[in-house]
């Protein structure tokens, strides 16, 4: 099992560009999450999804969009990149229900210049 796979691992964007961070999981998990991690600030929830076709905002959704057309995939879209979006982005999934262990991808380090 690959678990949670994120691509790309690194990316440099210019201000105003857009990009999509890919996330796919092969564990048939219902719940998927996008977090951003900034030094000393922990993990902040951007968006999450409890199943295909259902998404909801987290703590810091501004400047981002998501979609969940399949159970496996949960891409994160950045429109009009800004320096404040420089961060490490993590995708995670859990089965949901009574099983709450979160499985994380290896992260995408994004720099906006």
């Amino acid at each position, binding site marked *: 099992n690959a678990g*949670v796979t994120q691509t790309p691992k690194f990316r440099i964007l210019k201000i105003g560009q857009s990009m999509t961070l890919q996330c796919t999981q092969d564990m048939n998990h219902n*719940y998927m*999450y996008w*977090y951003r991690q900034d030094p*000393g*600030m*922990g*993990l902040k*929830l951007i968006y*999450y999804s*409890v199943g295909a076709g259902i998404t*909801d905002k*987290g703590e810091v959704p501004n400047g981002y969009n998501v979609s969940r057309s399949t159970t496996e995939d949960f891409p994160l879209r950045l429109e009009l990149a800004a320096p404040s979006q420089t961060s490490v982005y*993590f995708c*995670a999934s*859990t089965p*949901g*229900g*009574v099983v*709450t*262990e*979160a499985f*994380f*991808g*290896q*992260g995408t380090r994004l720099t906006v210049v």
Partner: protein
Amino acid sequence: QQQVKQSPQSLIVQKGGISIINCAYENTAFDYFPWYQQFPGKGPALLIAIRPDVSEKKEGRFTISFNKSAKQFSLHIMDSQPGDSATYFCAASIVGDDKIIFGKGTRLHILP
């Protein structure tokens, strides 16, 4: 109410010593308290977790102590080793709910 407060932000411990990281919460509906370990360049991974019906859970050198009345829980790493150097996150959630609330993390460095 949805916050989990973690301290200290960073910690340096001598090899063989005990590392202690503390977390506090407000929402009494939380019923699952995991700790995640993150090595540089990697995503966090579940280390150990506890539910509030027990006061302590031990797995090898790692122990969670849970104080329900004080709404606090802590991670103890006994006989700390250089390989334990990592960032540790406490978290809290409600079983069956959508979200996991993370603390801000503790950077632990074990001196060889």
